[in-house]
């Protein structure tokens, strides 16, 4: 049966094969052809190692999370395999929010996008005390920006790109 463990091994096998193709077809510069170590020497070795390893993972028998004599091989195994334990909406929502934050940082600037991310993240996770949440989010954004941009002099665009 193709469980998650073997499905990942299959993806790793495909990745290693693709990497091997890229390494094999790597365009060597004329002088590189005569070197003892070429730019694709180690990558080809790694790819072959990856293919062998993922094939072994695919075919080797699974180690049970808990063995017959009570030995626990994976303490959180039972917990992770029970979807009832999870609130998927909050987790996936947080990742989507993080992706939107990543894209908006340049367009909206650090201060606005960070404050919005922290406020919306808090709301998504059930925080409803807006009188705490909003001032904390804004203060944290301003403090981090001040520390990085003004004290450490590492440029961090505070405002939207279309303003400055």
């Amino acid at each position, binding site marked *: 049966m193709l469980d998650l463990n073997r499905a990942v091994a299959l993806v790793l096998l495909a990745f290693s094969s693709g990497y091997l193709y890229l390494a094999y077809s790597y365009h060597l510069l004329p002088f590189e052809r005569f070197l003892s170590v070429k730019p694709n020497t180690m990558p080809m070795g*790694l790819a072959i190692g990856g293919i062998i390893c993922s094939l072994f993972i695919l075919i080797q028998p699974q*180690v049970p999370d808990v063995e017959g004599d009570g030995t626990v091989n994976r303490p959180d195994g039972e917990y992770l395999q029970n979807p009832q334990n999870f609130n998927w909406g909050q987790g996936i929502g947080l990742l989507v929010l993080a992706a939107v934050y*990543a894209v908006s940082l340049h367009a909206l600037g650090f201060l606005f996008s960070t404050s919005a991310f922290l406020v919306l993240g808090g709301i998504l996770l059930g925080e409803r005390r807006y009188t705490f949440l909003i001032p904390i989010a804004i203060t944290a954004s301003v403090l981090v920006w001040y520390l990085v941009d003004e004290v450490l002099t590492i440029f961090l665009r505070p405002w939207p790109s279309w303003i400055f």
Partner: protein
Amino acid sequence: MLDGMLLGLETALSLQNILFAALGCFIGTIIGMLPGLGPMSIVAIMIPVSLQIGDPATTLILLAGVYYGAIFGGSTSSILINAPGEAAVVATSFDGYPLAQKGQAGKALTIAAISSFSGGTIGVVLLMFFAPALSSFAILFWSAEYFALMLLGLSAVSAFAGKGKVLKAVMMTLLGLMLATVGESSLFQAPRFTLGIMDLQSGINFVTLAMGLFAVPEAFFLAIDKIRGKKSSSKKSQEISNLRINRKEAKAILPVIGRQSIQGFLIGVMPGTGATIASFLGYAVERNLASPKEREEFGKGSIKGLSAPETANNAASTGSFVPLLTLGIPGSGTTAVLLGAFIALNLQPGPQLLHERPEVFWSVIMSMYFGNIILLVLNLPLVPYIARLLAIPRGYLIPFVLFFAMAGAYIGQNNSTELLLLLGFGVLAIILRFADYPLPPLLIGFVLGQMFEDNLGRAMRNANGIQFIWERPMTLMLIISAAMFILFPLLRDWLTSKHK
């Protein structure tokens, strides 16, 4: 030598220098907690400010304080939020974070502080007495030996493999090594495996990968977790901030500190290896030395597993000053930046420094000793307050963890692609955690990958083949040790299953 030590002691103990050492430790600790700003960046940022002081000894004392503080600050974010912003503190999170999850954040931070102090202090004593002798030993190491040392570091992955998972750990290491080949390399002319993406020309950023592999899944699992998510916000702050270590625990970490101080220092002495490999090897060695019962605890909140990398990385950081002070060769990225500070102060580190400016040479060494004491005195009282960060309600804690992880990758690059890459690695790490693939080996492979290929390439070019393996005894010895590191756990697994 005694005259020089007394001269250094006198300089380091002046009120002005003690204050600057304390200021350096404080600044380093606070900024070091931000993922992405490791000791090297913080020291580099502080150089222009510190040069304003004028006095070379005071300037270097301040920078050494910043260096130590930054290392400790990095450990704090590793332990509390599983966000190792620097390669040298990745191993700290393996057991530090599980301890914090168990409600023992105060204890974890105390063990980290004591281990750092001990590693740093023993390192300084070794530096004082053996620096000249060790520097001549360090230059015996050529590319072949460095390659073998990297291989030994990579073999540490066996320490992260539970029963029947050695292959998975090896696969993850290979994946990390593959990711390390993306972009430019010092050995070859053109960037590789960039798939035409301009942002990958300079390779994958360490902070992006580390935050993606550790901090993003942590925030995700805290958010989706109906049971543990509630528990984290309801933990009693008293329990979290308790920093007591009992006699049994102190007895357990004492030999670890002794061993790892010496091992970490010796690894740090060799130019180019530094604190990262010392911490990984320290972790692996202590796991292999532990009793079967203690070994089970590694990765789940073992105090030995926390103490080993913390001691080793601090001892190695001190060790990296040996080639800098005695030969003028920077032993790590941070000491390379410090070399720049020496030059800006019209000082030339190397054999002449001890004779021409003994007050500078000895005051830097003495200030390291006092820097360690100041760091301990400064940080131990703060531990209960720092640890209480974990009692923050999840509605605030989780978005902040994610924000700090993303800020670490964004600061200095101002590049959104980096953040999307970070999230991509985060999703990959979440899937790998569900499928029970160990993630630390992936990061170890990535961190050591470029050095591994560079040294292998140079060694093969010098020898025109692989005969350097058996022609150089030190290389052969290190490679055999690496093979034993991998084979012993396999053999132990096989024997255990046979007895059953």
